[in-house]
């Protein structure tokens, strides 16, 4: 008799669930018959920690590498460089083979329709992952019914239906149920509510919050909607052009953003007060070409406070918070590094 249950916690609560070090993914470009035409540096040296039980949000504009990060962590594409540790074990090592890791990490995609096989009924779709891992058909279907119940869809009404007969919100609930079917510890939510109506979006977000408690989950939440992120996340990672610009607790980032890019992103939200709406865009232009990123800080081409030092060398994440609420708040900006030579930086204490 095979049981697929959530695996035991090994490293204890202080051990981060996921540690990614120096993660990089280059997509090589083919140009002509001979020679390579360089590579798109979708993710370029990203360090990341996801703590147990938290919701880490990754935000950034299109093309910054958010989705590539999710696919790298999912093991769907091999990284160019870097390594991933899951609960202290190197993924792919003898202690944690890739298939066992895949069972503990599941994913929900943005397009709720494309992520369901149109030829499988709802219960077959949800029962599919456990059956892949060797659970018998009867048990798998039973589990599918329990999960339908857990995501708020009556099994008697929905189990035999097909994806095209459901609404977007219902389909996304199915996708969530399927992601839960293997009892994972980490769920990667890649823009899970971006394609939904506002009212349905709220329902699905609340469902996600409930399930997190109920199933003891950790979320990696990828989104471009800052209001949603503010609502669900514990910590936020801001990405720009394949690198981390800023990371920190959600309140600290939203209240006191350190990186000029984060400030621009936050200012780009529409205000609820019409008199406070801005006339000029906070950020202009497009991100530079990721094939050939600018030297130094990648944001220097669009940064309102760029100085010569910014195009000379690349800043790394450094702690900027000094209060207890800003613990772990880090940003990669020369203007925040004492003695960097940037006019806004404090002078180095001699």
């Amino acid at each position: 008799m095979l049981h697929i249950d959530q695996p035991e916690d090994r490293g204890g609560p202080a051990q981060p669930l996921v540690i990614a070090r120096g993660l990089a993914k280059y997509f090589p470009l083919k140009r002509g018959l001979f020679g390579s035409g360089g590579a798109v540096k979708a993710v370029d040296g990203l360090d990341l920690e996801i703590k147990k039980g938290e919701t880490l949000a990754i935000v950034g504009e299109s093309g910054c590498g958010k989705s590539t990060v999710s696919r790298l962590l999912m093991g769907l594409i091999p990284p160019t460089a870097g390594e991933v540790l899951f609960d202290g074990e190197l993924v792919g090592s003898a202690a944690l083979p890739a298939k066992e890791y895949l069972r503990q990490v599941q994913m929900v995609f943005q397009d709720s329709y494309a992520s369901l096989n149109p030829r499988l009924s709802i219960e077959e779709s949800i029962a599919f992952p456990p059956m892949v891992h060797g659970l018998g058909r009867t048990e798998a279907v039973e589990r599918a019914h329990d999960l339908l119940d857990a995501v708020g869809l009556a099994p008697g009404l929905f189990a035999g239906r097909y994806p095209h007969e459901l609404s977007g919100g219902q389909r996304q609930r199915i996708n969530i149920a399927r992601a839960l079917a293997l009892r994972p510890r980490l769920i990667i939510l890649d823009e899970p509510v971006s394609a939904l109506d506002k009212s349905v979006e709220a329902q699905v977000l609340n469902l996600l919050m409930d399930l997190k408690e109920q199933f003891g989950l950790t979320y990696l939440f990828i989104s471009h909607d800052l209001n949603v992120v503010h609502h669900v996340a514990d910590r936020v990672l801001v990405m720009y052009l394949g690198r981390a610009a800023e990371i920190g607790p959600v309140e600290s980032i939203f209240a006191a953003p350190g990186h000029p890019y984060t400030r621009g992103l936050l200012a780009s939200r529409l205000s609820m007060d019409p008199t406070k709406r801005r006339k000029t865009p906070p950020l202009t232009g497009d991100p530079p070409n990721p094939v050939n990123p600018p030297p130094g800080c990648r944001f220097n081409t669009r940064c309102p406070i760029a100085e010569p030092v910014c195009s000379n060398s690349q800043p790394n994440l450094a702690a900027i918070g000094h209060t207890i609420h800003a613990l772990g708040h880090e940003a990669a900006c020369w203007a925040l590094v004492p003695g960097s030579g940037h006019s806004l930086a404090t002078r180095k204490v001699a």
Partner: protein
Amino acid sequence: MTLVLPPTAPVRRWPRLPRQSGFIFGAGVLVFFVLCALLAPVISPYSPYDQSLDGRLMRPVFMGGEWSHILGTDTLGRDYLSRLIYGTRVSLLIGFGTVAVSCLIGTTLGLLAGYYRGRVDLVVGFIINVRLSLPIILVAISVVGIVGNTLPIIILVLSGLLWDRFAVVIRALTMQIREREFVLSARAAGAGDLRIVVCEILPNVAGGLVVVATLEIAHAILLEAALSFLGLGVQPPTASWGQMIAEAKDVVFFESWLINIPGLTLLVLVLGINVLGDALRNMVAPSGRPL
């Protein structure tokens, strides 16, 4: 949250199916001929092999013949209707047999090429090009001429020549579907390549498969008739439509109905199957989903 919904109606997969007149015509023709083939010993008035040298070249009733031989008799005095009915068996056997084997070959190659892409695709593409560069009739004639012309051999030879459309269509559909997120999520669930291809991709290309299959059945039936006409089809005295046309060609200027009857029958069957294939394709396309 409780949702109060009416009980669901049974799932209708192809709700517009019965309303297509082309579908009704094509399916009707096919069912008619399949029944003829299955019930041949029951419905044929005579044995297709019984010769009667007294009663040669009797005309069919609509040309002033007798009701004892509705479609007349051929140059050896065999009942033409009985031979026509038994000939259905050969045509359908060749049609379905060939498509079953060539579907297997073409779908396997198409799935491999579309799923793995890269080098596998290059190799399969090369094999497809080799096959496309071979003239079907010429190759069929030479192989059958060398190996012999029994029914299984003809089916195998035609299968080896008719799989290309399956491969091309399935390859294209597979390439589309493998990028869909449900394939990604199956992989995320830990499913291996074989399971992904069989459980996720194959059911979604099945619709395209059916469309190609109907067209290829007609193609195979025509090719068998052509081979039989050239004397390389099934062996006489087995009744086959192409054979009947070939035997009648000596008297075509005197008794042209001997060629017209099997020719028209062939036309109706092939037309019916093609119309059915077209109707299936039309039913598949507007939903916007690759089926």
